[in-house]
């Protein structure tokens, strides 16, 4: 028999990682990795933001020559590619990494080393893609990279190589992360957290992860074929050799439309986490929200052709996809009505996270309304490739993802850093961003309807576009100021912020049941839940504290987590988790060598990466010690 104090000490010893620079490269702690995802994605966000500022500066007045057409193409391509692939998904995966295990009452992700590996691959792929700027050869075919423009004939230089190779490399990270989320949610939930008690944010991450598993292969196949066409003279997209450029579009949007929901669903999950806490009541229609989540993820695979209404496809397929695109508004509507009903039936608290949620609701509904317009084929054909499209998808993606991400920042940063952010600076940031956002993107609806095409590097005076463009450009700078305010707020809070305490908002989910920041093992005692809102249960904390006496609940064996059953989260057995190791970094570096060699055309160098990867994987899978019998 051991005492509580001894067991706690044992937890500290087996979960603590060595301090210093070494653990920087070897950590497998989901919280450190989550933090890194968030910071790295923020840096990519800043880069893509500066690219956007450059674009808006060029378009502030007609006939400007600040940026030439070639550089403009690279900037808008990298702005879109970075925002979609290197900011939105990694940022949301970062919050998922940090908070999914905490909300589940677990001590880590199911595959901690895979998690570390995923981060390294994301970092290297992002650096690889942005290294293109050093050569003045950034991708320049737009973020959806249509052939034949991006094929070997019209872009013979390496630009598109950074896109295809970079995204194939990045795909490894995204897939690994998605599988990790799925298995974590299936197997590491706190006892009692049956399917109908999983927090809505985790449900959203789960639906997203499944969408990644099924959608990403289409993008990977597409990029692999383009790579073969460009580097080795294959003919997949080359009509002269019997190929077909439209295949690129089908595969791209078969990935690309689900990807919109891969970005938006976790963001909606953030909203579902925040709304009940600041309405001070359980969510109205939890069950319907879960169904809407899953339905959105499924239906998103049946709407991709609405990106291709102007391509010249058969009428029948256009009608089918038009109908499917209208159907997907139903689960979207269910979620909106659930949130609004929760707010109306609750006692609303307007703290900064909730302000950003309200900003999200307004902009996302506006973006959704223009989305319904695009589902109508004749309208779509009128405004396709105009600034109206740019306005629409920024209302959806900025409104639908960036506002929730900012809400999450203000809501969860106190848990991550242990410090509260300034409310006053937060409000200022919100109003600057919300006002600037509408000033930036609303006029684009008008300039688009007036006929301004997207992706032009300048325009002539006298077309009636000047005022709208100037307004957009001013709005861009206001938004930038708003982000600056949040950055200052964050840095200020790290040094001067008030201590947050365990639970600054009176939250409902398990991350608020532990200290801020949490200890390496998250929970000294494995929590047991009886509802979807464990912290709002009667005497939850007393019961958790009382359980410290139980050896079983404290689970202080060697670096152990509790594995539970898939449906009912009944305890199965304790499993030992791997400790810090440099192997994931080595394997990621091996992949980097292989992909960089492939990109540069140095195939011998690329081949050198293979033994590193294989050796690393063998070391990874080799048992640390004789595994215990199951």
């Amino acid at each position, binding site marked *: 028999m051991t005492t509580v104090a001894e067991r706690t000490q044992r937890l500290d010893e087996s979960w603590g990682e060595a301090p210093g620079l070494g653990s920087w490269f070897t950590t497998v702690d989901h919280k450190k990795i989550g933090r890194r995802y968030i910071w790295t994605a923020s840096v990519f966000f800043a880069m893509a933001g500066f690219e956007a500022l450059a674009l808006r500066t060029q378009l502030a007045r007609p006939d400007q020559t600040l940026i030439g057409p070639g550089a403009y193409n690279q900037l808008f391509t990298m702005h879109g590619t970075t925002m979609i692939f290197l900011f939105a998904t990694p940022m949301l995966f970062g919050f998922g990494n940090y908070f999914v295990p905490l909300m589940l009452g677990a001590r880590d992700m199911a595959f901690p080393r895979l998690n570390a590996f995923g981060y390294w691959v994301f970092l290297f792929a992002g650096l690889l893609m942005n290294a293109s700027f050093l050569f003045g050869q950034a991708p320049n075919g737009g973020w959806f990279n249509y052939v034949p423009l991006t094929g070997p004939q019209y872009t013979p230089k390496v630009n598109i190589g950074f896109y295809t190779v970079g995204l194939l490399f990045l795909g490894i990270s995204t897939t690994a992360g998605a599988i990790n989320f*799925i298995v974590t949610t299936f197997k590491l939930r706190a006892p009692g957290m049956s399917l109908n008690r999983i927090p809505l944010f985790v449900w959203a991450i789960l639906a997203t992860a499944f969408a990644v598993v099924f959608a990403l*292969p289409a993008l990977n196949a597409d990029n692999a074929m383009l790579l073969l066409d460009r580097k*080795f003279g294959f003919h997949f997209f080359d009509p002269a050799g019997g190929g077909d450029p439209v295949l690129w579009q089908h595969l791209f949007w078969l990935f690309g439309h689900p990807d919109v929901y891969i970005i938006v669903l976790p963001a909606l999950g953030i909203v579902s986490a925040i709304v009940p806490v600041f309405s001070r009541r359980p969510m109205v229609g939890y069950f319907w929200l879960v169904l809407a989540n899953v339905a959105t993820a499924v239906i998103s695979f049946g709407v991709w052709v609405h990106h291709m209404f102007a391509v010249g496809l058969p009428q029948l397929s256009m009608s089918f996809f038009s109908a499917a695109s209208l159907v997907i508004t139903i689960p979207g509507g269910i979620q909106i009505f659930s949130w609004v009903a929760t707010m109306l039936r609750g006692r609303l608290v307007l703290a900064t996270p909730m302000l950003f949620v309200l900003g999200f609701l307004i902009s996302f509904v506006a973006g959704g309304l223009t989305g319904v317009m695009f589902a109508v084929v004749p309208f779509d054909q009128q405004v396709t490739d105009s600034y109206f499209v740019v306005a629409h998808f920024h209302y959806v993606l900025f409104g639908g993802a960036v506002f929730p991400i900012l809400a999450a920042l203000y809501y969860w940063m106190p848990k991550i850093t242990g410090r509260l952010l300034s409310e006053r600076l937060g409000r200022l940031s919100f109003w600057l961003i919300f006002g600037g956002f509408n000033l930036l993107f609303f006029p684009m609806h008008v300039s688009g309807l007036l006929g301004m095409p997207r992706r032009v590097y300048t325009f002539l005076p006298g077309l009636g576009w000047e005022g709208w463009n100037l307004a957009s450009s001013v709005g861009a700078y206001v938004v930038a100021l708003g982000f600056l305010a949040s950055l200052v707020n964050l840095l200020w809070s790290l040094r001067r912020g008030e201590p947050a305490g365990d639970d600054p908002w009176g939250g409902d989910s398990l991350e608020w049941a532990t200290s801020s920041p949490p200890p390496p093992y998250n929970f000294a005692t494995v929590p047991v839940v009886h509802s979807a809102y464990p912290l709002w249960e009667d005497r939850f904390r007393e019961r958790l504290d009382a359980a410290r006496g139980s050896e079983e609940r404290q689970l202080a064996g060697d670096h152990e987590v509790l594995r539970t059953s898939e449906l009912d989260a009944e305890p199965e057995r304790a*499993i030992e988790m791997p400790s810090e190791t440099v192997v994931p970094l080595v394997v990621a570096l091996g992949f980097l060598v292989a992909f960089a060699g492939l990109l540069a055309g140095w195939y011998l160098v690329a081949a050198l990466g293979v033994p590193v990867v294989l050796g690393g994987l063998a070391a990874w899978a080799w*048992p640390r010690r004789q595994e215990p*019998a*199951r």
Partner: protein
Amino acid sequence: MTADARAVTAPTAEEVAAEVPAGRPTGWWGMVMFITTEATLFAALVASYFYLRFQSTPDWPPGGIKAPELSLPLVMSAILLSSSGPMVLADRGIRAGHVGRLRLGLAATFVLGATFLGLQGYEYMTKLEEFTPRTNVYGSLFFAITGFHGMHVLVGLLLILFVMVRAWLGHFDKGRHLHVQTTAMYWHFVDAVWVVIMLSLYIGPHL
């Protein structure tokens, strides 16, 4: 026969318990999801094959290439599909605690898989005399899809090799065999994909 269900003995507690699904380990789920996403990748490639085939000229294969000769691919199929048999033997064997069956099954699977890969190399040499991936889109599709599958066979062989080493070192017994199980799952998946490729790329052009 009686119509009164209560007159017949009710199932015992053990019989009921045996029907409750056993909780799966995390590694099992990890492999299931990995196979799922890989299968989707092959689905995207095979769908691209049919898309390009039906967008193309009435002749398939185009450009005077003959429809693929079937005898060698049928032999290859027989070899690869039969390799799943010893894999089942290995997997079932270690579940019952027979290390010998595990080693024998793995070795047989490895030999059959390596033979398949060797025959594919031989097939490539004869094919390359007729057409290459650069000849036209048919060549691109044929070599990309079969080559991608061949890479999966190679990965499967490396996995088997790894598990074989561990089996000889005595890492596995009745209660410890997760890597055997996941390797077997991957191998069966690679076999199943070959059936789709055989039907689409080899038999399809004859229909």
